[in-house]
């Protein structure tokens, strides 16, 4: 079996200084390469909190998170940023894109941040991704001039631009109408296969979950069930 991309060992997360509330209780989890996983569970069960930890956007209260076999516990904020830029892509439910920039610039942004300035080939790479998600004709549109579904598709292109092995998506279709939501999900599945990228997608949609390789169900800060879909 392939080496896991991410390993969580006994991860807990508490919030508050006066009144400390533990939100995640001892999570153990492995995410494998190219795996398309759905994370489901009632609201408030800790899905976003878990995703933030996986994305190194937040630090666990206890336990370890290993990324590509490497312990991330002792990393400084900048090292975590660097790892994030290299190994992880994000698609969020809200505020998908930077409103000041065009679709093309938004897709280029992770490359610009990583390299410090525009280099040869970046523009072409971003354009080819926009082509792939069917929005090449909108490349020079301001982000705010795109529909919700279009914005979310651009966000998918942006998450993929540095070819990360894992993309984390927190309710990427939550804010979209059914039709746009379906389109975005189809896109995620397609790019996951084509780019051999692992996805961890938080969703409330049963039908979407049913079409994933693996379904993790969270309840009250614990992983209640972890099923692999036979069909996939």
């Amino acid at each position, binding site marked *: 079996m392939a080496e896991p991309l991410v390993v969580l060992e006994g991860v807990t997360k508490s919030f508050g200084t006066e009144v400390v509330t533990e939100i995640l209780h001892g999570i153990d989890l492995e995410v494998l390469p190219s795996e398309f996983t759905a994370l489901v569970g009632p609201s408030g069960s800790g899905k976003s909190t878990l995703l933030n930890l996986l994305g190194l956007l*937040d630090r666990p209260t206890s336990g370890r998170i290993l990324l590509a076999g490497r312990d991330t516990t002792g990393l400084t904020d900048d090292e975590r940023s660097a790892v994030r830029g290299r190994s992880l892509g994000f698609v*969020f439910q809200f505020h998908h894109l930077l409103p*000041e920039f065009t679709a093309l610039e938004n897709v280029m942004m992770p490359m610009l*941040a990583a390299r*410090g300035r525009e280099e040869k080939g970046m523009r072409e790479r971003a354009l080819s991704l926009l082509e792939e998600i069917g929005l090449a004709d909108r490349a020079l549109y301001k982000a705010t001039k795109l529909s919700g579904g279009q914005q979310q598709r651009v966000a998918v292109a942006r998450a993929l631009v540095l070819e990360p092995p894992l993309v984390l998506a927190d309710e990427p279709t939550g804010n979209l109408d059914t039709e746009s939501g379906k389109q975005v999900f189809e896109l995620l599945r397609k790019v996951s296969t084509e780019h051999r990228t692992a996805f961890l997608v938080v969703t409330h949609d049963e039908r979407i979950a049913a079409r994933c390789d693996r379904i993790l169900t969270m309840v009250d800060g614990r992983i209640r069930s972890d099923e692999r879909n036979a069909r996939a």
Partner: protein
Amino acid sequence: MPFEVLVALRFLREGKIQTILILSGIGVGVAVIVFLSALIGGLQESLIERTLGTQAHIVVRAPEDLVRPVTESSPGLAVAPRVERPAQRLRSIVGWPQTLELLLTLPRVRAASPTVAGAAFALRGLANRSVALRGIEPSSFRRIIDMGPRMTAGEFRVDATNAVIGVELAADLGVSVGDKVRLETPAGRSEVFLVAGVFDVGNKDLNARWVFVSLRAAQTLLDLAGGISTIELKVAEIFDAERVAEEIVARTGLQADSWMKLNQQLLTGLRSQSASSWMIQFFVVVAVALGIASVLVVSVVQKSREIGILKAMGTRTVQVVRIFLVQGAVLGLGGSLLGSALGAGLSFFFASLARNPDGTATFPVNLTPALFLGAAAIATVTGLLAAVAPAERAASLDPGDVIRYG
């Protein structure tokens, strides 16, 4: 274009009204600085110009006679109960040609001219005026005070028995070019001169008192054969004058007085003028800095989502800091360009309001490239410093919070 600059400029461009408002604010501040500096600079320059137009930068003369009181009684000597300064007589600088040469080798000295100065009376018929006799060597004196352009009649010619007097004295004595004037010293020597020219140095007292004659004629009249009483100097940098004078005292043992010492009041006036102008400018800079800082603090709050997204995409803390520092610097620089234009316009407008009858500006506004460069540099650095606190705030934003709460 560096990533940070790209993002900074875009943030500014998209924050239209905010950016325009703060740019105008900085512009007005910089305009005040430019205008004030140009005005005060111009005023001071014309004041100094007016003062130094008729004055050497440094005047070197023989040291005053010192009284050596007898303090201890010794046989045959009485102790003076009171010490009185002796009457100062006109003294020649001993070995002045060598001294002159030495002074000319000093690096900061630009010109030196030997002169003989003493008191005399100018007589014409029944009219009698007390004057300041100035024996000069025209070739070198021209580089100390250029009298050529200040002549109202005749020419500045002081060879042989030619003399040049001021308009006031000419009127008092009722003489004009070509007339004769007798000069007489308190010691009783006298000589008749021909008025070769009449000058106006823009100072009534000097116009009434100065009488220029040749060095030799003055030496004869003042009984200073072959000697000179003063050496007048010009230095390269006028505010160096006092230091150069001190150096001369130390090296020659002669007395040397700079224009700064002789015009203490003017200097004090200039200094307090500068000080109040600095003060105003300082507060303007503070106001500009606070303006930039407050706009950026607001912008950090407004852009916290964007900052969170940028961080999630791998933007490092130092890059976030730079994005906001660049914004501060760009605001400062942009505002200073605006302000320089505004300040220059204001200066020209002001100068055009105050005009002499002949159409020239009453006082020149002194707009130099250095002034604009200085204003731009100050505004840019101010912007940069004002952005430090907002930038650190932006850098400390937790990307997790931003994502979670959208």
